C-alpha cells in the first residue's frame, strides 16, 4: 500500500514577541522574541492510501497546526513532511473568496489561487453548480450570501478539485441540515474512492462513523495512535480525569 503522508520528527515552534517591533529585530538577528512556544513536539506518523485517520484532542492541542503543516500552509521548525499527491484542504472554507465577485467568478478566482488552470475549473464547474444548489445566487456577488452559502462554495471547490489527500478540519458542520447530510455523503464517497484522509473533529459520532484509526494529540505530542475505540476512551478518560 502506498504511503500518502509521512511525517517524521516534526516540531513546530511559535515565536512570541512581547513588543511588536521586535519582529523586525528578529528578522536580521534571530534574537528578540520573548518566548518560544513548542506547539508540536516530535510528531511521527504515516497515513496510507485509503486510510481515514481521525485527529482528536482538546482545543489548542495542536491539531489545526498539524493540519496546516501537512497542507503546506505553514512550515515546520524541524523534521520532515512528505506528501505524495495533491492535497485538498477543508480548512476555513470561505478563505480566499472575494465578496464582490459572483459565486461563479469566485470559483475561478479561488481555483487559480489553488493553482488550477481555467480549463481544469471548466471541467468541474457544472458538478459544483449542481452540488451547491445555490440556484440564482450562484451568479450574484458573494456579499449577498449567508456564511453557510459561501462555505458551501468552498467545500464544493475543495472536494471537486480531485485531491488525493483530503484534510478536513472541523468543517463538516457546514450549512443547513440537508447540506450537512450531502457533504457527509460526498466526503464518504471520497473515502470510498480510497483517498487518504486526515480528519479532525470533536464529535465522537463522526469519528466513529468515518475513521479507521485515530491519533490523539495531547500537549503537542502523540499520546495515542491506533484503534478508534481505544483512542476515544483514552481521550475521554484524560479529559474527565482533569476535572
Amino acid at each position, binding site marked *: 500500500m502506498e504511503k500518502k503522508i509521512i511525517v517524521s520528527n516534526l516540531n513546530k515552534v*511559535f*515565536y512570541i514577541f512581547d*513588543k*511588536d*517591533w521586535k*519582529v*523586525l529585530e528578529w*528578522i536580521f538577528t534571530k534574537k528578540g522574541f520573548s518566548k518560544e512556544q513548542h506547539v508540536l513536539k516530535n510528531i511521527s506518523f504515516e497515513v496510507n492510501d485509503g486510510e481515514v485517520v481521525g485527529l482528536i484532542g482538546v482545543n489548542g492541542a495542536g491539531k489545526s497546526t498539524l493540519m*496546516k503543516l501537512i*497542507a*503546506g*500552509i*505553514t*512550515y515546520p521548525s524541524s523534521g520532515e513532511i512528505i506528501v505524495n499527491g495533491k*492535497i485538498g*484542504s477543508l*480548512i*476555513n472554507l*470561505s*478563505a*480566499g*473568496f*472575494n465578496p*464582490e*465577485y459572483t459565486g461563479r467568478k469566485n470559483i475561478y*478566482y479561488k481555483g*487559480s*489561487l*489553488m*493553482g488550477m488552470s481555467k480549463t481544469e475549473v471548466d471541467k468541474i464547474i457544472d458538478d459544483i453548480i449542481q452540488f451547491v444548489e445555490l440556484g440564482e445566487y450562484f451568479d450574484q*456577488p458573494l456579499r449577498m450570501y449567508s456564511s453557510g452559502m459561501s462555505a458551501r462554495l468552498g467545500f464544493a471547490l475543495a472536494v471537486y478539485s480531485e485531491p488525493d489527500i483530503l484534510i478536513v478540519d472541523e468543517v463538516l458542520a457546514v450549512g443547513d441540515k440537508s447540506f450537512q447530510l450531502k457533504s457527509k455523503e460526498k466526503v464518504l464517497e471520497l473515502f470510498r474512492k480510497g483517498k487518504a484522509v486526515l480528519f479532525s473533529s470533536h464529535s465522537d459520532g463522526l469519528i466513529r462513523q468515518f475513521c479507521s484509526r485515530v491519533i490523539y494529540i495531547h500537549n503537542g505530542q502523540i499520546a495515542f495512535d491506533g484503534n478508534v475505540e481505544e483512542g476515544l476512551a483514552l481521550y475521554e478518560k484524560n479529559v474527565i480525569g482533569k476535572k
Partner: protein
Amino acid sequence: MLNAVNDIMLEHKKNYLLIIKLAIMNMEKQTIRSSLGVLWNYFHDIVYILVFIMFRLLISGYGDIMGMNSIVYLLTGLIPWFFISDVLNQGSRSIKNNKGIVQSLRFPIVVLPTIEVLSIFIRRYFTFFILLIVNTVFGYLRYFNIILFIYYMICMLVLMICMNLVLSAFVAVSEDFHQLYLAIVRVMIYSLPIMWSFEKVNSLVAMILLRINPMVYVIMGFREAFVLGDRPNSIYTLYFWVSILVIGLTGCFVQNKLKRYYADFV
C-alpha cells in the same frame, strides 16, 4: 544572500502566469461594484490634479520652471507620483490584507507584493495618456522621447517592485512599522521635486540629501522624457541602480526569511 535572491526569482518565474492573471483580477476587484469602474480612478486623479494646479497657480503664479510651463512641470512629476504613492499605500498592504490566503491556502506568498504592483501599474497606465493630452494642449508633444519614457517606466516599475518586497514584509509583521511608515508616506510628496524644483536649491548638501531617495531619479526622469530630453546623468544613474540592487537584495532576504512564518505572524 544569493540563495535568497535565487529563491525569490524562481518563485516569480514559476508563477508568472498566475501573477499576470491575478494582477488583472485584482485590478477589477476594486472597481467591479461601481458602474463607472476604473473610470472612477481617473476621475479621482483629475480632481486631484485640478486642486494641485489651483494651488500652484495661487502660490507661485503662472510661469516657467526649468524652462517649461509650470502646469506641465507639475503634472510630469505628479503622474508618476500617483503610481508610486499607490504602491506605497496599497501595495505595502498586499500581504497584510490577504490574511485569508496567507493563513488558509497553500500559496506562494512572496509573489503577492509583485501582483499588487502590477495590478496598480495596469490600472495607472492610462494616467500617462492624460499627461500626453495635457502636453499636446500646451504644445510640448514634439519633445516627447519614447525611448527615455520606456526606460524610466522600467526604472519606476523595478524600483517599486523591489521596494514593495521590503515594505509589504515589514508591514505584514509589524503594526508599529506600519504606523510609522504611513506617517512618512504622507509627507513624502513634499520631499520630492514635484511642486518645487532643484533650480531653487542652492546648497550642495541639500542638493545631495534631497536626491538620496531613488524616486527622485524616476520623477526627474519623466520630465526629461516628456519635455527636456536630456540623457540621464551617469553618476546619478549609477547611484539609482546601486540603490535598486541594495533594496532588491534586502527585499529578497527579508521575504525569504519570512515566507516560512507569514502564516504564523500575520
